[in-house]
């Protein structure tokens, strides 16, 4: 199909152009999956992928909000880790506190995010540095407390990750609902619009009467919240608090954000692209697992996809 035809469809169905690349990649991966593996193209497998994707999904939502507002959050992985350990360790001693601790953990995430935002605003230090510092502090603290996976949670909490409604995994449903809510928030609410305005041009936003600092604080707090939610998901999956579980999450959370067409630097992007990015990454690693490709080669492939995707975005941006 030539490019002008694609352009026609984009306008005809008022599709967001920034979603094209991730959709094209999704089609490629799914087609390849059907051709290369008999186990890939089953409803059962797709549901499993959805279930496994949600941890990354929550983390990416938070990352996306911070990126839209012009920042970056490198503490997401460490908040995930700290949340799992906090939750599992407390509930291990007081099993009755399971439900309060769900909220407690989410609140913990919000507090860490708030602190990230506050320090960024007050000191003017680049968020890359602030959140890296936070990450180091949290990781260190957790490892002082325990080097091994620790604690436990009641069995029923496992439903949050493994539970199914009919055939559909609860965790996947929650993730999709989160994406949908954030999409509605960004598109249909004044505060959501403010995120784009501040990310695109903080000075102009300020002079337009937008209270930029509150917007930035909100974005980082939300990021902390979603990181803690991802933490809760991992506790539910493994039943323990793992001082290493979050390590790969920080960088992993950036990948779908980039694939989804958000601009690092802020001010532009569609959260649905991030959702598709999460699904793309999860499907890809699922397919590569079926093909017995080693994890290390998977990393190489992911890296290539990121660079190719971003080059295409940049090229498109210049043409426009």
């Amino acid at each position: 199909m030539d490019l002008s035809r694609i352009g026609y469809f984009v306008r005809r169905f008022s599709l967001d152009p920034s979603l094209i690349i991730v959709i094209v990649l999704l089609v490629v991966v799914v087609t390849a999956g059907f051709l290369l593996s008999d186990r890939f193209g089953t409803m059962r497998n797709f549901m499993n992928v959805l279930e496994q994707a949600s941890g990354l999904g929550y983390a990416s939502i938070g990352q996306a909000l911070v990126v839209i507002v012009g920042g970056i959050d490198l503490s997401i992985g460490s908040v995930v880790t700290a949340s799992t350990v906090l939750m599992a360790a407390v509930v291990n001693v007081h099993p009755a506190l399971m439900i309060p601790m769900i909220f407690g953990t989410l609140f913990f995430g919000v507090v860490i995010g708030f602190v990230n935002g506050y320090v960024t605003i007050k000191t003017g230090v680049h968020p890359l540095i602030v959140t890296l510092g936070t990450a180091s502090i949290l990781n260190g603290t957790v490892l002082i407390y325990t080097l091994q996976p620790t604690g436990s949670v009641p069995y029923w909490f496992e439903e949050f990750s493994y539970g199914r409604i009919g055939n559909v995994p609860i965790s996947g449903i929650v993730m999709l609902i989160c994406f949908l809510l954030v999409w509605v928030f960004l598109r249909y609410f004044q505060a959501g619009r403010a995120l784009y305005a501040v990310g695109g041009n903080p000075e102009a936003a300020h002079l337009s009467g937008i209270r930029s600092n509150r917007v930035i604080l909100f974005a980082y707090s939300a990021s902390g919240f979603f990181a803690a939610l991802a933490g809760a998901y991992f506790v539910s999956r493994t039943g323990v608090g793992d001082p290493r579980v979050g390590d790969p999450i920080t960088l992993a959370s950036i990948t779908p954000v980039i694939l989804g067409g958000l601009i690092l630097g802020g001010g532009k992007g569609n959260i649905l692209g991030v959702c598709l990015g999460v699904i793309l990454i999860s499907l890809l690693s699922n397919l590569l697992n079926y093909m017995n490709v080693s994890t290390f080669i998977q990393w190489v492939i992911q890296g290539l996809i990121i660079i190719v995707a971003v080059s295409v975005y940049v090229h498109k941006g210049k043409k426009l």
Partner: protein
Amino acid sequence: MIKLERISKGFPGVKSLDDVDFEASAGEIHALLGENGAGKSTLIKTIAGVYIADNGVIYFDGKKCRWSSPKQAKDSGIHVIYQELMLFPELSIAENIFVGSAPLTRLGTINYRLMYERADEILNKLGHKLDPKSLIKDLSIADQQMVEIAKSLVGDVKLLVLDEPTAVISGRESEILFDRMKILRNEGICIIYISHRLEEIFSIADRVTVLKDGKFVGCHKVKELSHDLLVGMMVGRELSDIFPKKKFPSFEAAPVLTVRNLLALPKVKDVSFDLYAGEILGLAGLVGAGRSEVAHAVFGSTTRSDGAVTLGGVPLDVPSPRESIDQGLGFLTEDRKGEGLMMLLDASVNITAPMLSEFTTIIGLDRSREKQAAEDEIRRYRIAVPYPGFDVNKLSGGNQQKILFGRWTRACRRVLILDEPTRGVDVGAKVEIYEIIRKLADEGLGILVISSDLPEIVGLCTRVLVMREGQITGEVNGTDINEELIMKYATAAKKAPSVSVT
């Protein structure tokens, strides 16, 4: 020295240069004159090899040339000094002068001793006393310009182009700059000098070429020209056609905006004034006089150290932009891209940004009503944007500016502050913007216009305040308003001028 024949250069949607002839010879200062958008910048960028002409021929030093990069033009002896100086603020003068061509020792390292010596020689040749070891960031803009000129003297410069150098420096510094330019001219260098300040043209240039709307208007010896003749060539029509007819407001009602003893250091030192409903009040002065800073301090986007502001009779104490906007104050900032538009977002979003609460319902934003409002503004100001969801970064300067007018006239009920409202827009859009401003004043807004474009201040305002070094040094009324008087107040009785680097 250089000769351009029938040069044309177009960009999507505009023809920037249309069949332009231009010629300048060695040992002359040749002024290039024209309004914003006349094609001056395009012409010098074509000379400098930044743009490649669509049509036409360039002869340089007797040879037919076709540069495909700025470097080629530079290597053949053309040096352009743009308004934004290309200097490294953290490096020394000498390092800047010899960037990329530093003298080396036998080991291949930079020979600093020799570099400082030669930098000193070049500065002496210019008659300008500066320590080659001082850092660029510690110099005034005027001295930084000298470093740029010194840079050109490292190579074998034959043609030196200066793009509105006096727009950013004070009167006395301009005199010094002119002296240096004359030294270079007498050495046989051809200097092309861009400005729209007529007095300067008469005091320094040998010949002048006038461009208008991308077309060649004429080339004359300055001695053979009068002031009025030159204005006529530049504008192409009578001044009265450009500006709407002035109307005096009623000064009987209480002023809509009062400012008393406003203090916002370091730039604003004790400023007081009144603005009446329906009035177009000018705020003139040199760049760096503190005009924009007054606007920011009134609007609340910088904190004021002292002073009282009332808007519509109500005190406006230490506000934030949000509160000022809610009280009916609007501020169209000078830097359209840096402080005005959210360049990544679309026209509609940019128009409604300060007044989103207008479209907020319990279930979120009413996007169709928001779009409708944006469409209203687009139609009202005849903004050339295909649809409200169109990205603003693809619009021309004039249309971007009209988007901001749409934004602020919607948001603003009492007073609108306009900082350089027509900077970087073409003449046609200028006329439209002047009409918009007049109409807004007629509808009862008080309007404060900050502008460095003196003809604009003179043509538009019924009263003008002049600022110098953070204070108001004069007020000119009605028929007394003219460029000479304003310049007198703007530069008068001045000790050693200091120009900040910002």
